[in-house]
């Protein structure tokens, strides 16, 4: 169970959730992913994505423009 860091900075909708979905599909249940993105839509999108896909959103932290989300794979 590793922790994967994903850098989505500079990407815009819908790329962050596409890249995230590809990354999580490669992983195993229980794997932790940390995704950072500077697109303001990332926060509502990642929340909706986790809700819909059943993955767990552990938390969101913000510093400046950067939004960091931690997810545990279903």
């Amino acid at each position, binding site marked *: 169970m590793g922790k994967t860091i994903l850098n989505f900075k*500079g*990407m*815009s*909708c*819908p*790329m962050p*959730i*596409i890249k*995230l*979905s*590809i990354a999580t599909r490669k992983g195993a249940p229980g794997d932790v992913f940390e995704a950072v993105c500077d697109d303001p839509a990332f926060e509502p999108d990642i929340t*909706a*994505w986790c809700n*819909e*896909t059943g993955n767990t959103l552990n938390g969101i932290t913000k510093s400046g423009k950067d939004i960091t989300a931690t997810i545990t794979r279903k």
Partner: protein
Amino acid sequence: MEQNELAKTVRELENRLAKLEKNSSQLTMVLFSGDFDKVFAAFIIATGALAMGKKVSLFVTFWGLDAIKKPAFKTSGRQFLEKMVLWMRPKGPDKLGTSKMNFGGIGPRLFRFMMGQKNVESLPSLIGMAQEMGIKIIACQMSMDVMGVKKEDLLDGIEVGGVATFLSDSFSSNTTLFV
């Protein structure tokens, strides 16, 4: 006796629930427009749904066919009018005009430039990604016939079907969009 009936009802409800849950995992879309901006919106929604683990079925008809054509193909062996229509319509996602501010083809170039500056994915790349993630694209046989479009003129991996194919997918989806 009463318990038996109860068990039967529970089983029935479970089956109905399973069917509903299956339906909520598919999105069906009609792509009627061949305008760059509308096609773009359609593929953003499609790739988004695929990323959310949904199945996506895209039924492409009329002007939408322009968006899934190969960038180049030969029109030999077709009727004169078919050749004319094919010659006048854009070939592929990179040649589409916009629904507003097209300005004879300058508009799309401007938008592509502005989208590139903002790091927005290009339309051909979005279509490629949707295909990689397993989108089902069905081209409308009837509009292909009318405009003289052949299956070989379309991007690889595209199926051909009719209205019943679309409706059947739509009936087993809980979301259907027309673009």
